[in-house]
């Protein structure tokens, strides 16, 4: 079912529709919020806080933006409240145990790049990190990111510009390999 229709039903108190939307958004929101906190229980609670607002406010959604932008904007605000004053660099994610040596070389290189990017992202200021995440991993247009984060479009572009510079510096080895 189309998301706008789901939201309309949720606004009418349809719990089944809410559960459908919840399950669809849980992994997306978790991936987004994972760039803000590594505390899994807290992350789940921010998702729940977000979806509780969705439940309560679905009836007032006016369709002036995409449903996804509306929900991500709620999640962003909830996360900022949750993490107020805690904008510290994220701890690097645990390294996965080494895979068997027969892993194909290209897969190994891809995984190394993935880890490198993840570590590099973690070291960016939160706003830059989120712009990168929403762009690369959520397919959001810069206007949608601006709406989500409540900032001007030019700020989104500037954050992306600085993030790209820093990612390039930090990932120069991977970059050389790939060229």
């Amino acid at each position: 079912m189309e998301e706008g229709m789901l939201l309309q039903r949720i606004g009418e108190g349809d719990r089944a529709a809410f559960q459908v939307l919840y399950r669809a958004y849980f992994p997306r929101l978790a991936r987004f919020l994972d760039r803000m906190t590594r505390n899994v229980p807290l992350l789940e609670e921010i998702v729940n806080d977000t979806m509780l607002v969705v439940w309560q406010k679905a009836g007032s959604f006016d369709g002036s933006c995409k449903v996804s932008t509306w929900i991500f904007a709620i999640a962003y605000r909830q996360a900022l409240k949750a993490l107020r004053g805690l904008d510290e660099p994220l701890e690097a994610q645990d390294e996965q145990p080494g895979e068997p040596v027969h892993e194909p070389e290209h897969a190994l290189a891809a995984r190394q790049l993935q880890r490198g990017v993840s570590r590099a992202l973690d070291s960016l200021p939160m706003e830059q990190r989120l712009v990168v995440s929403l762009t690369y991993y959520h397919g959001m247009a810069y206007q949608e990111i601006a709406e989500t984060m409540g900032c001007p479009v030019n700020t989104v572009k500037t954050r992306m510009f600085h993030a790209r510079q820093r990612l390039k510096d930090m990932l120069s080895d991977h970059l050389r390999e790939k060229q």
Partner: protein
Amino acid sequence: MSTRQSRTEAEHQALQDLLPWYASGALPESEAAQVQDHLRTCAACRADLAWQRKLLETEGPLPAGLDAERALARLMPQLDAPSMPAVHATSQTPYAPAAAQRGPGDRLRGWLAICGGWQFAALAAQFAVIAFLAWPRAEAPAAYQALGNGLAGTPDLLVVFKPQATVQDVQRLLQSGGAHIVGGPTVTGAYMLDVEPARQAALLAALRADPAVDLAESLTPGGQP
């Protein structure tokens, strides 16, 4: 081509700024056409685009331990609650999740947070009873407590009591050390303690030496390892 002739550094920069969204397919048609046009004549942007496409493929796995169904099960009962602000954040409480104010485990935690000034003997006894009653459902809410982000201030010590520890043990240790519980139990059964800085080291040593204690750790940056 006219693009080559008219391309200024500013134009190049403006179009290069759009490359991430060009790569992800999220540009409006008109801008995508402009970028496409620019790419024909700009080797630097072509190389940049190739790099952007690599980055697009680097989406990592979701964090381990997430459970959508578990989280949804916690949320569903709250849908009936009267509409209220989902996040009860104030300057004193950096974060109190919506669920945290409603589940028994978090009622306990909230209660603990506001009861710091009570006589601890009474607190400890009631705490033991409520912890017992809340335990089966306290698993998830208890884990909301992020270390260093406590509701009642920053905890200084973390302690895990042995299963056979009695209320009297807990009472004795905390009273003698001048500590009070500001959080917990976590899923691992740990409690967060608040104690005056001058008494932290002594309490930590006492806890570690006590047979009723399984584990005691400092949570302060300068604390003992």
